[in-house]
């Protein structure tokens, strides 16, 4: 309990107190506070428990690099956000925050036993310990580890918040509104370039916010920028990723900082395309590595300055500094001037600038050069520190309640690295700095390596007389990685920093090693006795800081996740209680149950109705392509397996489409309307793929052909009328088309009108019955459907869905591409030899039909399958074996592709791909299913009306 609010100073609004709670305890802060500064002001030092050892942890930093103080914020049901950095959470009236990774409480945490058992948790612990037995992993290891090691709880309810998204374009994007970013913006403000400035904090200013001497400049500058019409400033906005061609992803937090967010969107995703990018992301101070450096109250020196100057909060009453860099001295001088007691300055260096020594003397601060901190006492807060001369002598204690670390500065090159800019090592500051850009981008200020913070020594672990193998000197605070873990990894043979990182998990926490990467590199470099540039550098990847899934998903959730395509007739089906299924984004009626019917009963009734009278089916989803031009027939002749040039206008043909590798990719019935015009149909799911394939051949292989392809899938509603009464029903409705069998044979097309609507009327059948497919302009679909339903009443017309369509076509042995074929089935495998033009010299896929593996014996071939027990309906996908008594694993010789109960035949029917199946007619095969192995005989695929008598009427 040593932090406190200074009597004056800071940018918080002392006239606006706000009440908030942390772990159920109520506190007061000021508007402008973060959760971190407000709790510090209330004397709270303990913010969380560490990931692995459950060690008590306080604040390390004051900004987004904070690794320790992760908290959850509870905004009500479904609005629970874990793993927020307390240093980024703005306090507001009613804020409810809770600590994480502790049980039962932050102060009394059962998991802290891990800390005592630390010897059992070395580097690579997970890899080494839980290898065997495998079965223990799911039941014991993983649940146990999840319970004790981890971050905050994931929310369990749906997120009720809305998230917005927008695209933005600018000539210049400046990321980071600290002094360097503001200077760059001021320079561009007078030009005619569109400028966008983004900053992750609630207020622009960056490091200037912690330096009162710059506040007047800051106010003036921000006024100039706000007044500039070409400058847009986005605060509370994190540029989380830098992608190709200056495409930057950023998330703006809109309402989390407000006590009452109303119905406004919570966050907004910005997709920004910038002509030029200026990165002004500043630099992050490095912690120092020594025993006890994770004790609550040990923090970065720059953070203490920020808490004092920006928030008016002292981190302690008596503060010591451990420095290897001048910047810490300046911070401490600023603290002293703000009224914070300074216990001592300890610096590992033998000499420092005389001016620093003079200022320290003027402020009556004790200075210990050539010394290092070797230990910290106090479990929940610093009580004393132990220091020693670098030669190990002169060990003594200093009482203090906070210890600051000044270890030098690491330029923030995260986004620069996302953009694939190269880095070079800079010995002066002991860090990597930007070198060659890969995009139109440059770095300015501290992130460019231009840190004007004075001199420093670069050191991996502070000198200590203690046994280094017995102390916990932390490198990665969030993942609990110590210096000895990294040394152990090197001893165990790891050489590349990428491997050391993964083995020790150094830098792999949610902070991506913002405070730990460089120290980890230094320690590995010393342990390997190699220069730091020889051991590589780990890669920064988006996101810069963790972002919510909500912001990234935006509106793409629930019903808006993907578009659902519906036909003009869909609303009728919905009103008549259809059960729907999704077919390639289309919502299709699967069956139309009457009261009390299950799917089985409904489908049986629908099937019988089609075979005995007439059924009506919405086939609008069929893919349709209009092929027009003098070379249209030549083009189709090259694309499809069968001949097209001799097809007369007014006639239809079944078209089979292969890929160049010889395998079936699509099929459909198509019609020739005129010498230069065809109406193609494709499978529902294949429409876009087929059009793309045809365009490819047309544009790139045969650009000399004069042909135009147009997708007309959504231009036509298609109503299929199938059954012996189809013609009688249709006749009175149609004008200008003779429906008689002689004038309008099977596989023909006529143009005319139906109920006054222009139509392309196909006489085709996917059921084996007399059938018509009525194409009308889409907008007439439902009206025509209702008219036909009314007229069909006298024939007891029955609407049917895709399930019945599947059964009826299977009874006739018609394949469904993608169900009975899987991209490895040739026309011969599917018994579609008749659809291959034997006299054609070429078509897409023809040459491949002579490939050695395609003419080889034993290929899987499509056959019919009749179970010995006619009541057994096999499962689609069930595997087939020849010998059911062979040992497991059995040799699979094929699988069931289609399987239904046929009400017409009073038994089950199935289709299957079976190795060498066409030569095994009548043979018995075995289908092992849960509980029982079924037997079935191979048959032909046409189960019903093999002569096609029902079509020729």
């Amino acid at each position: 309990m040593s932090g406190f609010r200074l009597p004056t100073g800071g940018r918080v609004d002392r006239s606006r107190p706000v009440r908030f709670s942390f772990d159920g305890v109520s506190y007061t802060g000021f508007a402008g506070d973060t959760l971190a500064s407000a709790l510090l002001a209330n004397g709270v030092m303990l913010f969380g428990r560490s990931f692995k050892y459950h060690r008590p942890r306080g604040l390390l930093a004051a900004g987004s690099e904070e690794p320790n103080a992760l908290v959850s914020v509870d905004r009500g049901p479904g609005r629970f956000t874990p793993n927020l950095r307390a240093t980024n959470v703005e306090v507001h009236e009613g804020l409810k925050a809770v600590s994480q990774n502790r049980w039962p409480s932050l102060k009394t945490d059962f998991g802290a036993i891990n800390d005592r058992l630390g010897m059992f948790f070395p580097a690579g612990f997970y890899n080494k310990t839980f290898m065997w037995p495998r079965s223990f992993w799911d039941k014991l290891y993983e649940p146990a580890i999840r319970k004790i090691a981890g971050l905050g709880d994931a929310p369990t309810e749906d997120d009720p918040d809305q998230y917005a998204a927008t695209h933005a374009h600018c000539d210049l994007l400046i990321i980071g509104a600290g002094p360097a970013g503001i200077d760059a913006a001021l320079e561009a403000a007078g030009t005619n370039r569109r400028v966008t400035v983004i900053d992750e904090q609630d207020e622009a200013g960056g490091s200037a916010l912690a330096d009162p001497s710059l506040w007047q400049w800051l106010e003036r500058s921000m006024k100039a920028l706000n007044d500039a019409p070409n400058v847009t400033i986005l605060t509370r906005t994190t540029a989380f990723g830098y992608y190709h061609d200056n495409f930057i992803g950023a998330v703006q937090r809109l309402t989390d900082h407000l006590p009452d967010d109303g119905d406004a969107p919570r966050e907004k995703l910005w997709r920004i395309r910038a002509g030029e990018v200026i990165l002004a992301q500043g630099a992050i101070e490095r912690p120092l590595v020594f025993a006890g450096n994770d004790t609550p109250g040990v923090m970065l020196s720059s953070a203490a300055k920020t808490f004092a100057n920006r928030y008016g909060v002292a981190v302690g009453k008596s503060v010591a500094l451990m420095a290897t860099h001048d910047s810490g001295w300046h911070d401490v001088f600023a603290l002293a001037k703000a009224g914070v007691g300074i216990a001592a300055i300890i610096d590992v260096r033998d000499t420092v600038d005389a001016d620093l020594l003079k200022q320290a003397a003027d402020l009556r601060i004790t200075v210990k050069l050539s010394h290092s901190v070797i230990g910290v006492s106090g479990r929940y807060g610093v009580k004393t520190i132990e220091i020693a001369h670098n030669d190990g002598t002169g060990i003594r204690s200093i009482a203090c309640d906070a210890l600051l670390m000044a270890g030098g500065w690491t330029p923030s090159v995260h986004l620069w690295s996302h953009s694939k800019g190269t880095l070079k090592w800079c010995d002066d500051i002991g860090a990597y700095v930007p070198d060659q850009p890969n995009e139109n981008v440059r770095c300015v200020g501290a992130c460019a390596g231009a840190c004007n913070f004075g001199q420093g020594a670069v050191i991996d672990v502070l000198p200590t007389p203690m046994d280094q193998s017995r102390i916990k000197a932390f490198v990665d605070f969030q993942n609990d990685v110590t210096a000895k873990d990294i040394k152990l990894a090197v001893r165990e043979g790891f050489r590349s920093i990428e491997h050391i990182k993964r083995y020790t998990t150094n830098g792999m926490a949610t902070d991506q090693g913002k405070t730990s990467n460089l120290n980890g590199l230094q320690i590995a470099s010393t342990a390997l006795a190699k220069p730091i540039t020889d051991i590589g550098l780990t890669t920064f990847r988006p996101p810069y800081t963790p972002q919510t899934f909500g912001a990234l998903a935006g509106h793409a959730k629930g019903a808006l996740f993907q578009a659902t395509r519906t036909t003009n007739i869909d609303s009728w089906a919905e009103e008549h209680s259809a059960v729907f299924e999704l077919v390639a984004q289309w919502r299709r009626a699967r069956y139309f149950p009457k009261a009390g019917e299950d799917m089985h009963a409904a489908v049986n009734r629908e099937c019988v109705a089609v075979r005995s009278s007439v059924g009506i089916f919405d086939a609008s989803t069929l893919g349709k392509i209009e092929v027009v031009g003098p070379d249209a027939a030549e083009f189709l002749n090259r694309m499809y397996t069968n001949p097209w040039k001799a097809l007369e206008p007014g006639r239809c043909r079944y078209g089979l489409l292969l890929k160049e590798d010889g395998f079936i990719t699509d099929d459909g019935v198509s019609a020739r309307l005129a010498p230069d015009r065809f109406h193609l149909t494709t499978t529902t799911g294949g429409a876009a793929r087929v059009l793309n394939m045809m365009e490819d051949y047309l544009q790139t292989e045969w650009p000399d052909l004069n042909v135009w392809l147009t997708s007309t899938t959504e231009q036509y509603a298609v109503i299929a009328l199938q059954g012996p009464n189809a013609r009688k029903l249709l006749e009175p409705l149609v004008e200008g088309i003779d429906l008689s069998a002689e004038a309008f044979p099977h596989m023909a097309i006529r143009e005319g009108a139906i109920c006054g609507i222009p139509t392309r009327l196909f006489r085709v059948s996917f059921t084996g019955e007399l059938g018509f497919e009525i194409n009308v302009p889409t907008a007439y679909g439902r009206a025509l459907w209702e008219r036909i339903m009314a007229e069909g009443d006298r024939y007891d017309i029955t609407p049917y869905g895709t399930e019945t369509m599947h059964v009826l076509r299977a009874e006739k042995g018609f394949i469904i591409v993608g169900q009975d074929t899987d991209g490895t089935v040739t026309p011969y495998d599917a018994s579609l030899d008749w659809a291959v033009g034997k006299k054609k010299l070429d078509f897409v896929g023809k040459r491949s039909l002579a490939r050695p593996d395609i003419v080889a014996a034993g290929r899987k071939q499509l056959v019919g399958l009749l179970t010995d027990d006619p009541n057994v309906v096999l499962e689609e996908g069930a595997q087939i074996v020849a010998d059911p008594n062979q040992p497991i694993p059995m040799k699979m010789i094929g699988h069931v592709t289609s399987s239904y109960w046929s009400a017409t035949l009073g038994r089950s029917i199935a289709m299957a791909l079976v190795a060498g199946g066409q030569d095994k007619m009548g043979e018995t095969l075995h289908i092992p299913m849960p509980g029982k192995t079924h037997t079935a005989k191979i048959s032909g695929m046409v189960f019903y009306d093999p002569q096609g008598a029902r079509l020729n009427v």
Partner: protein
Amino acid sequence: MILIHCPYCDEKRAEIEFAYAGEAHISRPVDPSTYGDEEWERYLFIRANPKGRHHERWRHIHGCGRFFNAVRDTVTDKFETTYKAGEPRK
């Protein structure tokens, strides 16, 4: 998200408007039946897969619909150039 120059629209547009279409300059033989099995295998399956400059096809599928050729560096993911189908290899 990469920007790609469509040589037909003569505009740089976002990657989501385009579809990748495999290696470029692999012409379908005028008469595939004259190809032996090995020759046909090479045409059908064997691709360059280089590290570096790659000649490849793209289609401006959500734009003008045209297929065109491009040279892209597979290491840096940068487009060196794009050009119309039928133009000589660059």
